[in-house]
């Protein structure tokens, strides 16, 4: 795929907008409008920097993309959205140039559009059901709802789409607006109104997407909210997991800043279950309700030979070092990161893509993703897989590691893999990979990143025996987020197992509503 310059994309969109002006658009005309690609940094430049990969739409592109929407009466897209954003309405407002109005529509249902617009797997949610995609017989040709959501959120954060593509890096390559805007915008953004103080106290454990949502929704009702975060920085997976190049930290910072300006207190370096027992919050510290949003945080390993060799990392470790501890910034960060040369990443999810692309950015010469099914079954967002490929990452499908080989210093030297073929569908509906006997091959690598998912962290549940968990260690909560413990609610990955930001947010919304009902 050739890289089209952002300016060319903008010009083409502007020309077409003029062409379409003053004409009554029929469905056929809308379907004929070409889908707008989101301008991105040149792959050969961005694989050497940590700045955001994509620039976001130019205003002209957003208007044009919004015109592709057929404004279906039954709006199938809404049913595909975990928080049921009124998609046709927010998209129409973009086509009319009413970006503030558009954002308000989104905010009725979703609290974090700048984040969800970037990280939601839209092609499996709203966009999968889009009639435009269905008419064009390609779900990837659906209206780019996620990009439009991001556009209005960025517009609100002061990036104004791409209207000022002014900043450049040292080599004259344009930098994404998020590299320079963002952090400054929180102060100018309006703070959601907070009702009069009720004096009721709510503890929110963890500070990822579910917790951010709960904190905002509960605080709005005038309750006192304290967030407890184990790390030294709040944000959860948005900060330690998802890399800067996919979700700029200034955006997460903005959301947290908004919470603080609403009056939410954030306590870092506080591990509930260890620093203080959960039950002490209710029995001794006077909290009226608790929300647990501690996420899924126990990295899974494959239990194959050589997994504890030097050079084998969980994706969590590799990404935490790189993101949260900023190890990519070698000049300033005290936390070291292993210098990879030839890398194998095991897994096919978003985290695997993040790890692979991070390894490339800190100087790996060769990065291989080893996945036991095919591209179609990969759980990663299609856009991330495309981006990874453009950046020079090699994919090995239908292949799975058998063992990791090391030298006498216990350092990784190679992996031995086995080839697979797809058999009958399994309980997930995906065709089960079956190993092909005798198909072993080896690949020389010095770094292995294991990214096959997370189990729930047992720390809080183990120190709170009364809290009911299922056999995977996830907290059991009903449809209102209520747990087996009175006045204790839970949501996000600690309940769902590893899921998505938007699902965590949706769960948070429900739990917050329950808490607000309880305290009303």
């Amino acid at each position, binding site marked *: 795929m050739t890289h089209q310059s952002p300016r060319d994309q903008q010009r083409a969109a502007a020309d077409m907008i003029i062409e379409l002006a003053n004409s009554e658009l029929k469905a056929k005309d809308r379907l004929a409008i070409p889908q707008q690609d989101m301008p991105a940094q040149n792959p050969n430049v961005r694989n050497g920097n940590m700045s955001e990969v994509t620039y976001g739409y130019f205003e002209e592109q957003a208007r044009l993309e919004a015109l592709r929407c057929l404004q279906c009466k039954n709006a199938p897209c809404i049913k595909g959205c975990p928080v049921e954003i009124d998609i046709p309405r927010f998209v129409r407002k973009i086509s009319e140039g009413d970006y503030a109005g558009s954002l308000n529509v989104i905010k009725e249902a979703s609290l974090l559009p700048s984040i969800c617009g970037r990280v939601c797997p839209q092609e499996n949610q709203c966009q999968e059901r889009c009639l435009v995609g269905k008419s064009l017989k390609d779900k990837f040709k659906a209206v780019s709802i996620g990009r439009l959501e991001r556009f209005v959120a960025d517009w609100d954060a002061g990036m104004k789409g791409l209207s000022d593509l002014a900043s450049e890096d040292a080599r004259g390559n344009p930098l994404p607006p998020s590299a320079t805007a963002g952090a400054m915008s929180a102060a100018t953004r309006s703070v959601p109104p907070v009702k009069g103080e009720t004096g009721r106290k709510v503890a929110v454990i963890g500070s990822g997407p579910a917790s951010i949502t709960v904190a905002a929704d509960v605080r709005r009702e005038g309750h006192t909210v304290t967030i407890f975060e*184990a*790390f*030294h*920085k709040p944000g959860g997976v948005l900060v*330690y997991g998802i890399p800067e190049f996919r979700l700029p930290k200034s955006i997460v910072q903005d959301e947290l800043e908004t919470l603080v300006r609403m009056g939410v207190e954030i306590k*870092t*370096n*506080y*591990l509930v279950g*260890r*620093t*203080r*027992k959960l039950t002490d919050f209710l029995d001794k510290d006077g909290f009226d309700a608790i929300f647990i949003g501690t996420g899924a*945080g*126990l*990295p899974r*390993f494959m*239990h194959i030979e050589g*997994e*504890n060799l*030097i*050079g084998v*990392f*969980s994706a*969590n*470790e590799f990404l*935490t*070092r790189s993101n949260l*501890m*900023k190890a990519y*910034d070698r000049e*300033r*960060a*005290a*936390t*070291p990161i*292993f210098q990879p040369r030839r890398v194998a990443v095991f897994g096919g999810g978003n985290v695997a893509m993040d790890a692979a692309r991070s390894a490339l950015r800190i100087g790996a010469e060769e990065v291989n993703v080893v996945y036991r099914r095919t591209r179609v079954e990969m759980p990663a967002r299609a856009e991330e897989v495309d981006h990874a490929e453009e950046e020079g990452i090699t994919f090995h499908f239908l292949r799975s590691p058998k063992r990791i080989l090391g030298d006498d*210093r*216990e350092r990784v030297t190679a992996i031995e893999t086995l080839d697979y073929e797809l058999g009958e569908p399994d309980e997930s509906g995906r065709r089960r990979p079956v190993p092909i006997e005798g198909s072993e091959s080896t690949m020389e690598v010095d770094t292995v990143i294991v990214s096959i998912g997370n189990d729930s*962290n*047992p*720390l809080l549940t183990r120190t709170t025996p009364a809290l009911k968990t299922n056999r995977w260690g996830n907290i059991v909560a009903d449809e209102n987020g209520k747990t087996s413990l009175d006045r204790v609610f839970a949501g996000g990955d600690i309940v769902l197992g590893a899921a998505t930001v938007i699902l965590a947010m949706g769960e948070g919304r429900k739990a917050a509503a329950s808490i607000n009902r309880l305290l009303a």
Partner: protein
Amino acid sequence: MHTILSRTQLSDNVVRLRVAASLIAEARSPGQFVIVQVDTDFGERVPLTIANANSSEGWVELIFQTVGATTLRLAEYSQGEALPALLGPLGQPTHVENFGRAVCVGGGIGVAPMYPIAQALKAAGNHLSVIIGARNRELILLKEEMADMADDLIVVTDDGSYGRKALVTEPLRELCESDSPPDIVVAIGPPVMMKFAAETTRPYGVHTVVSLNSIMVDGTGMCGGCRVTVGEETKFVCVEGPEFDGHAVDFDNMIKRLQAYKPQEDRARSQCMIDIRAKELTK
């Protein structure tokens, strides 16, 4: 705020900080540790064991050796200053009961985390023998405190400048061979010392607990960087440890894993020493 209440230089490169931390002091048990940061923007997270604590006065004591950039910076803190980040208590507490005869083996800086464990074993009614090992007289830690508490105290040094000229494994073997052998041994110190302490007790079948100090990032079970092989299984030191059955730990793998970031650590350490020296010169 985690204010430094007092700072004591215990030897050339060993420092004791008493830090205000009321919640940690209240919640902690022997065997647990904390994570310290000297800079929350770019600093690393370093696990340090809790050497002592007082819940009514709300402080914990950290005793550490200046081995890397962060501990060097930590040693620069003086009374009245505050640590930017302190998380804990982390890890599983030591399993304490009246085993009968308990032997605590502390090597070098390992004597510091051993102190609260020895205290607890004594309080549970065990007959307590303590073996302290150090390279030389200068580096012997907490001798008076241990002497006050233990039923027997044996001090050994590598160079014979104090006590017996021996490694800790010699008196440990003698105790195992004596008429009243230990019912439990707890060994904390450099990995090599723990490995050989476990090898020493193995033939006698004495249960031997070791406390591992592997490399960690978060300390809460999230990164898996601290994992060790124990028996056939992979264990996370931060949440399932730090204490394990010394006879089941794969020390060779653990010791090599500790070297994973050696070049980066050495570079950071020398840069840090230059920075500290430069700061002193400009004073």
